[in-house]
């Protein structure tokens, strides 16, 4: 990342660089934990769907309702959270998928810290812009 060729992880590196390395480790950690947690929640939700609806194991007609256009499932934050509180399988899967979508968003938010530590105004601004665009996507989707 730095073009001066010195190893930023070494103790002789300036403290700002060491903090940046720590932020990069946090980013790597956020990505890993985000993916593993969200998929565990997704799998748990899928199992719950079949536990609550044993008829899905045998009946073919219910499949149409679930997968064809116009299928009913939670897709707003309040629907997802209310459903999850009532341990509805679909809502739990949706929580997992939302966690997955939020993983890169969190990653961008953590990156802002790295640039703040470096006192790098230009990149703090650039990263903030990316974060705002990401958050806008949820708002635009709701407005439609």
């Amino acid at each position, binding site marked *: *990342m*730095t*073009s001066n*060729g010195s190893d930023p992880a070494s103790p002789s590196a300036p403290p700002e660089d060491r903090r940046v390395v720590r932020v*990069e480790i946090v980013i*790597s*950690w956020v*990505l*890993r934990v*985000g*993916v593993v947690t969200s*998929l565990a929640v*997704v*799998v748990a*939700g*899928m199992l719950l*769907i*079949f536990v609550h609806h044993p008829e*899905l*194991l*045998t*009946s073919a007609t*219910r*499949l149409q309702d*679930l*997968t*064809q*256009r116009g*299928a009913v*499932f*939670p*897709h*707003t934050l309040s629907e997802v959270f209310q459903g999850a509180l009532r341990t509805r399988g*679909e809502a739990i*899967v949706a929580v*997992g*998928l*939302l966690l*997955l*979508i939020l*993983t*890169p*968003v969190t*990653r*961008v938010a953590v*990156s802002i810290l790295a640039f703040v530590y470096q006192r790098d105004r230009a*990149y703090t601004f*650039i*990263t903030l*812009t*990316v974060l705002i*665009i*990401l958050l*806008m*996507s*949820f708002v*635009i*989707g*709701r407005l*439609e």
Partner: protein
Amino acid sequence: MTALEFVLICFFVSIVGGFIGSLLGLGGGLVVIPMLTLALKVDIRYAIGASIVSIIATSSGAAAAYVRERMTNLRVAMVLEIATTLGALTGGYLAGRIAGRWLFMVFGIVMAASAVMMLRKRRNAASDEGEGTPWANYLRLHGSYYDGALQKEVSYRVVRARLGLGLMYIAGMMSGLLGIGSGVLKVPAMDLGMRLPIKVSTATSNFMIGVTAAASAGLYFARGDINPFIAGPVAAGILVGAMIGARVMGRLQNALIRYVFVVVLLIVSAQMLLKGLKGN
């Protein structure tokens, strides 16, 4: 077919898709969407919604490793992500407004183009000569990385940042419209366009794909195109497949396999096009 069978088939089809995708250096999306729509008759919007979240999983998993190895150029990634996320918003917005048959047709074309792109030689256009360009200098995009094969630190200068931004907007738009990672567009934009080393381009592209996908995934979710019953097994399957693919990748560097896959991709892209042309 019962619902259980459907979920299991989705899961295993996605494992295959994620596996092939990671071998080819594509996300799973290009493989999984045709499988879901053509074979399982899933609505194309649900297939795209399932694919877009899966891409986040595979990209984030791979990026975690790349960031630790310091192969990714975080500055280049951040600057270009402004363009890819705006593009993804545009694409995701358009996807909700155009008919499904058009999605099939655009998908077929992009898929064929991607297949042809895979045949190109992975030339390394990077160099440390020259001055870079004013934008790249101002944004301090130049960098260096440790090349394991050459066993030395390689430094490089970045050029044509604005061209890169333009290409990334298009790549982001395709990603948002079709639910794919569009790494096939991102990598050449960086290595041929901006002259980043191929390894840095690949790692940076992989890092960016997840953020790009998140931009349109929010839109798809709020619109109700991410069906948990489909997206759940697909996301889990693609991730498992991509992990297996990454394991065997080193042992499977056969050019013949690559050509076979390219032919398969071309055939499938023709089928997608045909489905679009015929309507329903």
